[in-house]
């Protein structure tokens, strides 16, 4: 597959078109109808949760949130491929992938309400926390990949980065280290066309981002990231390649961030309506829905009822997240070191004395 879709020729690997029609008959995703419908439902859940998160933020009940609207197929492709004990090293815009790895919406809400607890992802096996500094998480994936090889484990490390992240030094260093170490890492670039307001053409002069794989001597592939079938196949082939001891792979997933960078951002300042409408036609959920309808895999009239159920469940988890006990002072100090040094114990005790004084004055 990697030879056939050479990023040097700027070929985009795609299976269905915007109307949900299979246009590439040479590659078969091989997903069962149940898996396809289930995938659509997962993507729908992620999108519903995403909309609700933005709405909670607008109501002042949550802080800054980075919407994932429009990029759901990439998360779902990862979810279809990884095994429970494979590693996932996230950035901060892949809601569906976090959920698929075992995080709950309550976790996600808690994190964006301001609790560290929300990014521990206790129920997600082998998932790293959300990483804010752009590109930096890729090195953790390379290091985990080294450890997987060192311990002779049968695991693959999946990691994601945005198009802006490919300009960082850590992107280069991570691909280079992973390649030299033959580490089983699948690097996925979520090329959503913008790094906040800066378009891709101001990030790179390369014809695409997947071609950067050539410099590291590893396979790369440019994929329609809004085409679940193509994304699934690309991730699957990459994971198989890495799992067999061949080393890392670089996937560029073409997508579009339909929402704002975060709830603090206003994309009308840097995007045109025409551009948005163009990308609307490629929407991963709409395309998959058309495919499902054409092939009569599921009665999509049930969708609205489903969304109502999802909303109820999401709101239930939001309420749980909202009703946390007050953040204890101890939690500020407790996790700085494996064992709290006397210095921190003293600082905490001193501050507690002040709090007691303040309480007594009331």
């Amino acid at each position, binding site marked *: 597959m990697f030879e056939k879709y050479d990023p040097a020729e700027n070929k985009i690997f795609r299976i269905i078109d915007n109307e949900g029609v299979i246009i590439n008959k040479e590659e078969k995703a091989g997903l069962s109808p149940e898996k396809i419908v289930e995938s659509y439902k997962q993507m729908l859940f992620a999108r519903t949760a995403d909309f609700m998160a933005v709405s909670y933020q607008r109501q002042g009940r949550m802080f800054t949130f980075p919407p994932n609207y429009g990029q759901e197929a990439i998360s779902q492709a990862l979810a279809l491929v990884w095994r429970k004990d494979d590693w996932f090293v996230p950035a901060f815009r892949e809601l569906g992938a976090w959920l698929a790895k075992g995080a709950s919406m309550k976790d996600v809400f808690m994190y964006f309400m301001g609790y*560290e607890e929300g990014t521990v992802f206790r129920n997600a096996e082998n998932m790293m926390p959300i990483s804010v500094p752009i590109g930096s998480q890729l090195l953790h994936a390379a290091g985990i990949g080294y450890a997987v090889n060192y311990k002779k484990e049968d695991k693959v490390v999946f990691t994601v980065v945005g198009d802006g992240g490919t300009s960082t*030094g850590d992107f280069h260093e991570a691909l280079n280290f992973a390649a030299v170490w033959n580490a089983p890492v699948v690097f996925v670039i979520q090329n959503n066309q913008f790094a906040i307001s800066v378009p891709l053409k101001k990030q790179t002069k390369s014809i695409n981002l997947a071609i950067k794989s050539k410099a590291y001597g590893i396979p790369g592939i440019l994929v329609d990231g809004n085409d679940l079938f193509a994304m699934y196949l690309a991730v699957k082939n990459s994971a198989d390649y890495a799992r067999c001891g061949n080393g890392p792979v670089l996937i560029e997933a073409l997508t579009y961030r339909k929402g704002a960078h975060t709830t603090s951002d206003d994309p009308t300042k840097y995007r045109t309506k025409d551009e948005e409408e163009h990308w609307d036609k490629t929407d991963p959920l709409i395309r998959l829905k058309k495919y499902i309808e054409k092939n009569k895999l599921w009665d999509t009239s049930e969708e609205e009822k489903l969304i109502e159920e999802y909303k109820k469940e999401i709101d239930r988890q939001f309420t749980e997240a909202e009703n946390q006990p007050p953040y204890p002072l101890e939690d500020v100090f407790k*996790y700085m070191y494996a064992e709290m040094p006397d210095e921190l114990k003293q600082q905490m005790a001193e501050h507690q004395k002040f709090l007691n004084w303040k309480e007594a004055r009331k």
Partner: protein
Amino acid sequence: MKVMNMVQAINDALDIKMGEDNSIVVYGEDVGVEGGVFRVTENLQKKYGEARCFDTPLAESAIMGTAVGMCAAGLRPVIEIQFCGFMYPAMNQLISHATRLHNRTRGRYKVPMVIRLPYGGGINALELHSESMEAVYGHIPGLKVVIPSTPYDAKGLLISAIESDDLILFMEPKRIYRAIKQEVPEEKFSIPLGKAKVLSEGTDVTVVAFGAMIREVQKAMVMAKQAGISVELIDLRSVYPIDKETIAKSVKKTGRVITVAEGPVSFGIGAEITALVNEHSFLSLEAPPKRVQGFDVIVPLPKGEHHYMISPEKIFYEIERTVNY
């Protein structure tokens, strides 16, 4: 007991720990085949294989960042950043991730990493090879900063650092890598982190120092003794956490304190010790706390470096002034 210099003592500590624990990996630039530019990791690759002691591509951010991932996946990396001045590309990974992973995940992922960092001046080196930036590191929450001054301490402290589940910056005073030899037990022993050591007891003035400056203070103490001044010398051994009790106890006795450190004076270790002494021993003071430190300048290249480096005479000069205040 075997006579060792600091390079041999550190190598011995690494050897002992690697022999005990398969999860320890040692890596960095030139640490494998060559055994490190200072030969600190000599023979470790031969003995433990390339998977456990290896050369990386030349990229400090990646050395630090991949170690964060290795910690999450259950390894205990001991990484070498070849020179203090090469640390800066790795600062993002250090501050944004290595020091934060444990707190960020509420203890789910530990960071049992040791960063070995040769530091300090006085060796006629190239630019960016002579700095003492321990105060910068002491200021970073989530990091512990350890600095030995003898081969014995280097071995015992490094063993503790490797056994600790916390992230430790182990700063090695390269000026005295081979300058001091002493008897060091061949078997495993450890020295607790965060505890200073009173090297000489005295009554007139407390001098707090660490790393390569200990030897310079000891030379100054010979002059002080001839002048009839009794100096109490404390080797800090750990910049963070700092051993407040040992310093306070000493200053209560002597009533005077001088900090000797190579790093720039402003916002430095001396400033911290002065603040601690003011907070905890204020009424015992008979003279203002004094800082004998580097200037707030870039360390000059070798021909000008003697202006920067702290000499025993300068230390004695300040000891005498403080005692006669």
